[in-house]
C-alpha cells in the first residue's frame, strides 16, 4: 500500500455539513412530533415544583387520616355488630335458654316489676298472674334493698 504523508491541520479545513435532509423536512417535523405527543401521556399530573412542596406534608397527613378513620369506624361498627348478633336469635330460643339455664333471683323479680310497664306478653313471661302474685308476696319486695 502506497501511503504519502503531507502536512495537514484540521483548522485549515472549512467546516461544512455534508448531510442533507428531504425538502421541507424541518417545516413538517414539528407537526409530526406534535401528532405523536397527542397520544403520549405525560408522566406526572401534578407539576414537579408543586409536587416537591406538598409531598413532604402528604405522608403524615395520610397517616393521621388513617388513624382518625380507623378510630371512628371502629366506634360505629362495635354496637351494630352486637345488635346484629342478638337480632339473629329468635325469641323462642332466648326463652328456652333462660328456662333451662337461668335461675331466678330476687333481683330478677325486681326487674320484672319494671318489665310489666313495658307491655310484655304473658307468653314471654311464661307465668300465670296468680303464681307471680304468690312469688312476689313470698319475697316481700318492700323489704328488699336496691
Amino acid at each position: 500500500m502506497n501511503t504519502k504523508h503531507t502536512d495537514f491541520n484540521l483548522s485549515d479545513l472549512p467546516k461544512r455539513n455534508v448531510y442533507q435532509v428531504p425538502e421541507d423536512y424541518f417545516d413538517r417535523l414539528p407537526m409530526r412530533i406534535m401528532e405523536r405527543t397527542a397520544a403520549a401521556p405525560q408522566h406526572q399530573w401534578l407539576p414537579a415544583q408543586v409536587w416537591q412542596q406538598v409531598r413532604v406534608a402528604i405522608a403524615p397527613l395520610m397517616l393521621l387520616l388513617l388513624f382518625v378513620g380507623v378510630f371512628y369506624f371502629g366506634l360505629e361498627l362495635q354496637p351494630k355488630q352486637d345488635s346484629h348478633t342478638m337480632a339473629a336469635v329468635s325469641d323462642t330460643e332466648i326463652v328456652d335458654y333462660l328456662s333451662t339455664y337461668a335461675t331466678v333471683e330476687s333481683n330478677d323479680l325486681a326487674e320484672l316489676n319494671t318489665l310489666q310497664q313495658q307491655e310484655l306478653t304473658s307468653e314471654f313471661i311464661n307465668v300465670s298472674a296468680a303464681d307471680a302474685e304468690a312469688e312476689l308476696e313470698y319475697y316481700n319486695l318492700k323489704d328488699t334493698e336496691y
Partner: protein
Amino acid sequence: MEDKEILEKFANPDSRNLAFNQLVRKYQQKVYWHIRKMVIEHEDADDLTQEVFLKVWKNLENFRQDAQLYTWLYRIATNECLTFLSSKKRKFFLPINDVATELAEKIDSSTDISGDEIQLKLQKALLKLPDKQRLVFNMKYYDELKYEEISEILGTSVGALKASYHLAVKKIEEFLKQD
C-alpha cells in the same frame, strides 16, 4: 421565545401545546444534526429525533431549571444515539469496526450525503473514533460548545474532555494525511 418563557407556558395546561411546539421549532435542527452526525442515515436520525422530543414531552415537567434546557436536550439526544449504536452492534453481532465500516459505506453510497472529497474523508475519519470520542469531537468542532457545557451533557470532567478532543484531532489529522 426564551427558554424561561417556554417553560412557564408549558407549565400552564392551556398553553402547553403551544409552548412545546415553540420548543420543537427552536431546537429541532440542533437535535437532528447532533443525531445525524452520529448515526449517518437520515431515516435513523429522523426516528431518533422524534423519540428525543417525545421523551422531552413526557419529562419536561421534571426538568430542573438550574440546568440549561439545551444541554438537557443534548443529553437526551446523546443517550438516544449511544443506545441506538450499541443496539445496532448487538443486533448484527458486529464488532465496533464493522459498524464503522458499514456507516462509512453509507457515506459513499447515500444520495443525501454530498461534499468535497476531503469533507467526505473527514466524515469517514470520524467513524474511526470510539462513539464517545466522536460525540466530544462533534460537539466541540461542529456545534462549538464550551467544554463546561459538554461536561454537563456527558457527565465527564473538563480535563478529560480536553484530552479526548485533542487526541481525536490528532487521530483525524493522521488519517487525513494519508492519500
